[in-house]
């Protein structure tokens, strides 16, 4: 079976600014991946290159085994995209927008569209230009879900929504999307939402996917260990995320350890071991 997303050596720069640098990335079918990175790290650029909305300088992107710049109509119909913000179709009403898009797809779930329009209290006949940013975002989500895509790509899907709106969106994702084994890739800054739904997290840093791991194992295997330099250097982590010297002259590493090593470490009385939350991991990994 063809992977929903396979990227090899993707590079993209704007003028002198290199945004993506020889980036490799693979997403397996059925995974729910949260894409994290600091402001300006290039998350939107990556998403746009991945969908063939932007030309890259080099590298290849394949969606379901096809070159993203030459997707067949059948493959396009398997993909749904929610942009960060959209200033398109401002003069249409939601009714006209849905009618327009429905014509492109062989599959279109009218029941779902009507239900979400009603549940999210969107007006059918108001011009889109007059909707609030939150309403536009909801509309964009409904449009992307309507043809029941197998790959759903969302760029900051909840940035304009209040906490209640985000929760409703998450419920929809849980209920209608994850249930159908859809592959979902979404960028976000809201770590609490990501924690609730993502199975994997990918960190974009310096133009590359610096780390991608199941969220559970990321939280369980990563520890901050503090002790004397000699002691800490004698450890055998399988991955070091960060290492620094504290004000007290101790050495402190943020690292991942195998289960057996961890048990040994926890028995040690001279090392200080602390677990870390996702927010701190985000700060350290993207530093």
């Amino acid at each position: 079976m063809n992977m929903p997303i396979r990227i090899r050596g993707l590079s993209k720069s704007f003028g002198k600014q290199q945004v993506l640098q020889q980036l490799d990335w693979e997403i397996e079918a059925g995974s729910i991946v949260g894409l994290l990175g600091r402001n300006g790290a290039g998350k939107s650029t990556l998403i746009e290159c991945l969908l063939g909305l932007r030309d890259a300088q080099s590298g290849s992107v394949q969606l379901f085994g096809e070159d993203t710049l030459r997707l067949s109509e059948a493959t396009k119909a398997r993909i749904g995209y929610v942009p960060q913000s959209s200033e398109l179709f401002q003069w249409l009403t939601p009714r006209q927008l849905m009618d327009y898009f429905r014509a492109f797809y062989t599959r279109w779930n009218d029941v779902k569209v009507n239900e979400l329009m009603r549940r999210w209290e969107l007006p059918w006949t108001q011009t889109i230009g007059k909707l609030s940013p939150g309403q536009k975002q909801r509309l964009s989500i409904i449009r992307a879900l309507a043809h029941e895509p197998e790959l759903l790509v969302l760029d900051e899907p909840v940035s304009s929504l209040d906490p209640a709106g985000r929760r409703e969106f998450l419920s929809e994702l849980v209920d209608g999307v994850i249930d159908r084994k859809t592959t979902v890739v979404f960028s976000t800054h809201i770590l609490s939402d990501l924690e609730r739904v993502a199975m994997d997290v990918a960190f974009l840093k310096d133009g590359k996917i610096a780390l991608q791991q199941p969220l559970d194992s990321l939280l369980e295997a990563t520890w901050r260990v503090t002790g004397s330099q000699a002691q800490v250097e004698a450890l055998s982590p399988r991955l070091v995320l960060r290492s620094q010297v504290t004000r007290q002259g101790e050495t402190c590493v943020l690292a991942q350890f195998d289960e057996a090593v961890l048990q040994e470490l926890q028995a040690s009385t001279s090392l200080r071991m602390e677990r870390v939350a996702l927010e701190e991991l985000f700060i350290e990994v993207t530093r």
Partner: protein
Amino acid sequence: MPEPRQLPADMLHVNTGGHEPIYRQLMMQLQRMVAAGQVSSGDALPSVREVALALGVNPMTVSKAYSLLEAQGVLERRRGMGMLVAAQSSAAPSQMERLNMLRPGLERIAQEAHQLELSATPVIALLRNLMKGSQG
């Protein structure tokens, strides 16, 4: 056979922003409820989907917690009835198991004590005092 008591999905809850993965939070809550006798053998767990919707979490996470608890013998899968609280093998969980349930809270205390530059001795003394008090 009596109709099993149906446990509500909102007996579970999750906290985000901590270091405990959500599936572990769910497991520990259920283990504590079993240990404390809040739920008893034969009670029916809410379905994976109900919990996922009520808590706004990924159904795969709920399913992972249920499966691991099943492997531990805390829950059992009964055809046509979903997940039930299993007949517990021993009357009470071992001291080690109960101690492990305290671990997350104690880890937080250890971290806070360190931030406050308190060594273990006075913290343990305080804990001992508090526990004496609660013995009544």
